[in-house]
């Protein structure tokens, strides 16, 4: 089995893990949901930290002398990991609520296909840019371009699916009823999980109510554009968190980096 195939299988395993979060997220006890959150936050944090170290190493290599005091102290280890853990925890919360609430099968197909596709795109970029970038910075560049390509593609499909999804008519009801309609559908065994899901539902209710108040008639308008920009931003955050979840499998470990450097 090639490295790429093994990596794609690992990515599919992560996608399957994300799907299991969707299947069992509402019936998990609080401690189980906590473990799942840690399971989501850990790879995101690992990927962010790994990329941060790559960027830091690139900065040191370009701008600092190896024998300087600043160069010795700017390892970035603690700060990078703390920052990665904070962002990873936040993205894990976003990813968890999004995965649990994602009921569209077509959207799940996008996530399943997107996982190995991200690995393939990354491999293409890495091989294509091997002669251009240094081995140490190559994974970061290839990942950024992978996120740009695969992320935009996934986000575009998800927005397209959102565009064709039927929504309840909340144009003639109060904001309270609109929000309650969404909040009331969110049930979970764990109270914190239920709260998290209901907060996400509040966001959906407010957004849909405002959107339908601003654009009661179909057609292009400034309000409609703003509404879709919000949807786009949401999809972008979701795709970003999902790809960040896949990142540590895609970006090579230090061992791979050394192998790339030497070979």
């Amino acid at each position, binding site marked *: 089995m090639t490295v790429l195939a093994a990596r794609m*299988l690992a990515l599919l395993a992560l996608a399957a893990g994300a799907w299991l979060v969707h299947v*069992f997220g*509402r019936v998990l006890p609080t401690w189980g949901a906590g473990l799942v959150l840690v399971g989501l936050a850990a790879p995101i944090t690992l990927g962010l930290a790994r990329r941060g170290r790559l960027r830091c190493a690139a900065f040191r290599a370009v701008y600092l002398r190896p024998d300087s005091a600043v160069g010795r102290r700017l390892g970035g280890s603690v700060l990078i990991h703390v920052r990665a853990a904070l962002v990873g925890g936040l993205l894990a919360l976003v990813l968890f609520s999004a995965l649990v609430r994602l009921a569209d099968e077509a959207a799940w*197909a996008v996530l399943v296909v997107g996982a190995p596709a991200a690995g393939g795109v990354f491999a293409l970029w890495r091989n294509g840019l091997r002669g251009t970038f240094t081995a140490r910075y190559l994974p970061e560049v290839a990942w950024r371009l992978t996120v740009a390509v695969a992320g935009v593609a996934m986000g575009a499909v998800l927005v397209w699916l959102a565009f064709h999804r039927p*929504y309840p008519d909340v144009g003639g*009801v109060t904001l309270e009823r609109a929000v309650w309609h969404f909040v*009331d559908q969110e049930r979970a065994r764990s109270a914190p999980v239920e709260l998290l899901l209901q907060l996400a539902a509040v966001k959906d209710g407010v957004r849909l109510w405002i959107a339908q108040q601003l654009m009661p008639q179909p057609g292009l308008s400034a309000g409609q554009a703003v509404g879709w920009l919000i949807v786009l931003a949401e999809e972008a955050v979701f795709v970003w968190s999902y790809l960040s979840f896949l990142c540590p499998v895609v970006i090579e470990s230090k061992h791979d980096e050394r192998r790339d450097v030497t070979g």
Partner: protein
Amino acid sequence: MLVAAAAALLMWLVTNVAPREWHVPEADIVVDGVRYRAGPDELRWLESFTAAHFDAGGKAARALVADEVDAALDGLLDASRARLPEFLDWYYSLSGEYSRIAMAALEAAGLAAPGYVAERAASILLPEDAWTARLAGLESTAAARLSAHYRDVESAWRAEVAMRLSARRIPAPLGPGADRRPTLVLDGLVRDIIARETDALGLRVSLSTATAGVGAAAAPALARAVGARAGRAVAGRAAARGVSRIGAAAAGGAAVCAPGGPAAAACALLAGAGAWLATDWALLYVDEAMHRDELERALDLALTNLRAELERELDAAFDAAIAAHGAAVQREISRTFVPAEAGRDASGASTSSGDGGTGRDSGV
């Protein structure tokens, strides 16, 4: 190849395996158009409270009706007692005496139905018009008070339910079918209870009509008691009069018309008749002086007994109507709360087709 197989397997899973839903055993309750979300504890409390509240309302209704019956019968019996002298005057009059004698003769000859005195007593003491009017008044008053009472019971129930569930108030769903939870529209329950209360009033109308018949049947019983008491006096007087009248008539005729010559026979007839009447009047006078108070007390006691019997009859009739209403209300409560059973008995987690979830992208 392996990657493609794994991807295909995962694709099949995401499109064929539904997520596990967490179902909370809750139901929506609609009272006065306001929607509340109730859990198992609230549902149990609401059902038991509703049953107990309307049961207590039924008990209070019985007490209320008993008061009404009591007041109506007091008025009825006071009027009857006020007519006692009228009956006694007739009874101790010559016309009354000869009426009884004439009717007794016709009765003996099989030309008249028995119980003349009884019918006369009933017609004087318990006149049909007064009896019917009094029962009609009782019926309308009781119906009005019961109606107001049940309105109060329902208002108190609504207020208590609204107060106890105020913290569980929720907005109305967006449209029909938007909420798949069991929904108890208790406005319907109250409407049904009101309808059944109206039916119960209709039942009471027929019952009061039937009770009027009971009164009409009870009146002869009262009068028969009077007749039995009077019969003994009449028999005593008849035995005495039989001898004294004949003797007085013969003596009177002989004494007055002895010197009359050819007109002595006609004179004797008139004198004898006069002596007969005078004797009867004197005997009636003596009988009245001796027995009127006793007869009045006997009639009063009979009226009192009749009142007690009528009170039992009327209370039983109204109790039956109220009990039927209460049973119907309890059945309605049990039937109404059946949809909540699904909410109570639901297990925590179950597999659904995924329709309970909402899309993450529920956006614009």
